């Protein structure tokens, strides 16, 4: 069905030796080619210059660009041909996104929308390089679609700057979606952050997942969400948590021991949860 519209993901590597302007010109050319021929750009994600794992066309570095767009299938052939001919495009990979890929992409975007641009914690390489790059163009149409689907969480999530730990938090919490787990997480936050507004956090937590923790304790959010995420990853199975003060202590000790492993554990947990 060449006339039907499909969503595609195109990743290509541009020669990084040429000037920045030339690189941007090339990227814009590819983007305009898509839009001119009836396509709609969803996102242009420039990863920047990365070291290649093996030399391509004798070059050791490449400028990676990741484009998502919706277009009729008939333009793909000419697009790929144009990329093939261009000497400055080292590699390209076009993929039609099926339902699983689309769902994964939407989840990823939700995750990235809660990421802080500046992050000093080690993260999964793929995700960090994508999120911290500049020149991200997200079309409003898709953003609205996502907002409609996950209105409460995304609206608030976009408004604040929280750390990347919210990503795994959100996923795990949404899956569990029990007040017990949320409260357990919040009690940990409370103890760590020594915040006064425990009760408020707990009550609001049930409705919306983790924005409250950030809104209330803004300055300690990195520590809070880090410890909370440690609790999340370990408490993923313990969905039947209670809010007794006795359990607080138990949870705290558990999280304390896990907080030290947080750095090494989380990248793997992140990968698994996403």
């Amino acid at each position, binding site marked *: 069905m060449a006339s039907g519209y499909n969503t595609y993901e195109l*990743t290509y*590597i541009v020669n990084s030796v040429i000037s920045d302007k030339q690189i941007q010109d090339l990227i814009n050319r590819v983007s305009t080619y898509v839009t001119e021929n009836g396509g709609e750009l969803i996102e242009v994600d420039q990863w920047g210059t990365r070291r*290649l*794992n*093996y030399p*391509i066309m004798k070059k050791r570095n*490449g400028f*990676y660009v*990741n484009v998502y767009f919706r277009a009729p299938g008939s333009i793909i052939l000419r697009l790929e041909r144009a990329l093939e001919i261009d000497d400055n495009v080292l*590699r390209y*990979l076009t993929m039609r996104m099926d339902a*699983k*890929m689309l*769902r*994964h992409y939407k989840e*990823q975007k939700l995750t990235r929308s809660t990421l802080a641009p500046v992050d000093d914690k080690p993260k*999964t*390489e*793929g*995700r960090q390089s*994508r999120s911290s790059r500049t020149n991200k163009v997200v079309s409003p149409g898709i953003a609205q679609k996502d907002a409609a689907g996950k209105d409460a969480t995304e609206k608030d999530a976009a408004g604040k700057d929280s750390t990347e730990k919210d990503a795994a938090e959100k*996923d795990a919490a949404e899956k569990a979606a029990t007040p017990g787990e949320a409260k357990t997480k919040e009690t940990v936050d409370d103890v760590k952050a020594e915040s006064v507004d425990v009760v408020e956090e707990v009550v609001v937590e049930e409705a919306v997942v983790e924005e409250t923790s950030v809104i209330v304790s803004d300055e300690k959010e990195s520590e809070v969400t880090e410890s909370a995420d440690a609790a999340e990853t370990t408490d993923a199975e313990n969905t039947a948590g209670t809010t007794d003060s006795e359990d607080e202590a138990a949870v705290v000790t558990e999280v304390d021991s896990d907080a030290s492993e947080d750095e090494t554990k989380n*990248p*793997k947990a*992140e*990968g*698994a*949860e*996403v």
Partner: protein
Amino acid sequence: MAKKSSLDDLKYIDYKDIELLKRYLNEQGKILPRRITNVPAHFQRMLTRAVKRARHLSLLPFVADSLK
């Protein structure tokens, strides 16, 4: 099966998620066989597809001296 609960990536494995992929490669960058990693069959197929795409885009090497 017990494996399913621990692998949430059973929906889709992104070739860009290199950290995830590296877990299933050995030091030489080779894809580990299922009898070693004990992953479900379709997970292994998705994994293989993703690794080969990543190798094509030079996000992973084909051959390495010490990948980790």
